[in-house]
């Protein structure tokens, strides 16, 4: 019998709004103002507070979808989705087995994970140099 065949029905409150979603939205708004006025970025760890399924749905609905959707292949897939609000990004991290390991909302021009690191660029320049030399 596979794990999925065992029906485990637990009574949980995942259909209720807890009020935490509103709090998160307030925090996002504050961070967005800080980004707009002072260029300060911020991250909210969605795993760090109790959010029910309904809370997450409510947040996703309010934040909406933007123009960019990125899929990152980093020891498991990570997804970066721009929300309808410029500067507000939703990040979902999964490990190699597809298990959710982290979920964040990042308020930034672009999530810190995305831009190439100067050290990596330097190394890549070197590598490309060697490649061209060998042609």
């Amino acid at each position, binding site marked *: 019998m596979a794990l999925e065949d*065992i029906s485990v029905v637990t009574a949980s409150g995942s259909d209720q709004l807890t009020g935490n979603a509103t709090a998160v939205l307030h925090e996002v708004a504050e961070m967005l103002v800080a980004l707009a006025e002072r260029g300060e970025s911020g991250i909210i760890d969605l795993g760090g507070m109790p959010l029910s399924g309904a809370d997450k749905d409510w947040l996703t609905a309010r934040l909406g979808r933007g123009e960019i959707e990125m899929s990152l292949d980093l020891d498991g897939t990570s997804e970066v989705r721009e929300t309808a609000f410029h500067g507000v990004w939703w990040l979902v991290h999964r490990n190699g087995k597809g298990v959710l390991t*982290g979920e964040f909302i990042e308020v930034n021009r672009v999530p810190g994970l995305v831009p190439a690191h100067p050290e990596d660029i330097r190394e890549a320049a070197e590598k490309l140099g060697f490649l061209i030399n060998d042609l």
Partner: protein
Amino acid sequence: MRHEDGILMAGLAQHGVSRRSFMKFCATLASVMALPPAAGLAMAEAMASARRPSVIWLPFQECTGCTESITRSHSPTIESLIFNVISLDYQETLMAAAGHQAEEALQQAIKDNFGKYLLIVDGSIPLGMDGAYSTIGGRSNLEILKEVAKGAAAIVAMGSCAAYGGIPKANPNPTGAVSVADVIKDKPIVNVPGCPPIPVVMTGVLAHYLTFGSLPELDKLGRPKAFYGETIHDRCYRRSFYDQGKFAKTFDDEGARNGWCLFELGCKGPVTYNACATTKWNGGTSWPVESGHGCLGCSEPDFWDAGSFYKALSMPATPLKTVGVAAAAGAAVGVAISFANRAKKSAAKAAHETTTLPDLEK
């Protein structure tokens, strides 16, 4: 060789782990440890640029299960890679050197980083027979521990054996096994119990130390609160069945198939502090209760002596040895008393004694 990156970043890159993967790992690690997201960034920076990460790993009276759990040399993860790279100074199971070369490496590592290295110990320390039960190169574990601990900034007692004595300490403790904290009294010690511990706990402690230069907040048994702050029971997804009184009675019965609570099958979840219910094992695949077996309580001291793994917490932990004798003794004493009473009664009757008020109030 890059200038700003330290050994860890280079080591990870060699194994095909990108900077971004490492940043993702640090972000989720900070989240698991209930640290703010900024800590995740700090961790990534600190660990990436760690120049001479100095960790000395001493294996004592152990089964190597803890090392296996962390390093999982058959399928490396970022955790195992971190340990591979960071523990290059001295790690008996993994390092290439052996014999006198290994001894020299240890002495060199101690000398180079005196007062600054992190000492990780797994396995208990046997005191019996002057420590002869477990020796390395002719020296007892006890002697080695005392020597290496002198220059350690902090000690991580990894696994239940190092943290509390573990299985060697279980009744009757033939080797006189004790924990690290029983031997070393003057250094900060973090206990990371579990048989074995969940890998990410070890990584979390190391990451915290490398980033902030301090140990995470500990409970009164010396365990990081971030991972050992709650009981299995309080996070168990089968908890609603416990509350309703729906229990599996045997393995593979109807209740078990329906995923009911495993209390009757001996689950020690209510008295065990660990992160298994939330963090799970094998990269989040599953954990004992989810697989249908009760929690053993392996992160608690003396869990081997806490009664059978298959007897519920409300059942007697050890057989009741003297109750039969006590009942028989009670009957015997009762019979003796009754003879005495009857004798008294006959004597009173013969002497024509009357019953007085004081007699009734006795």
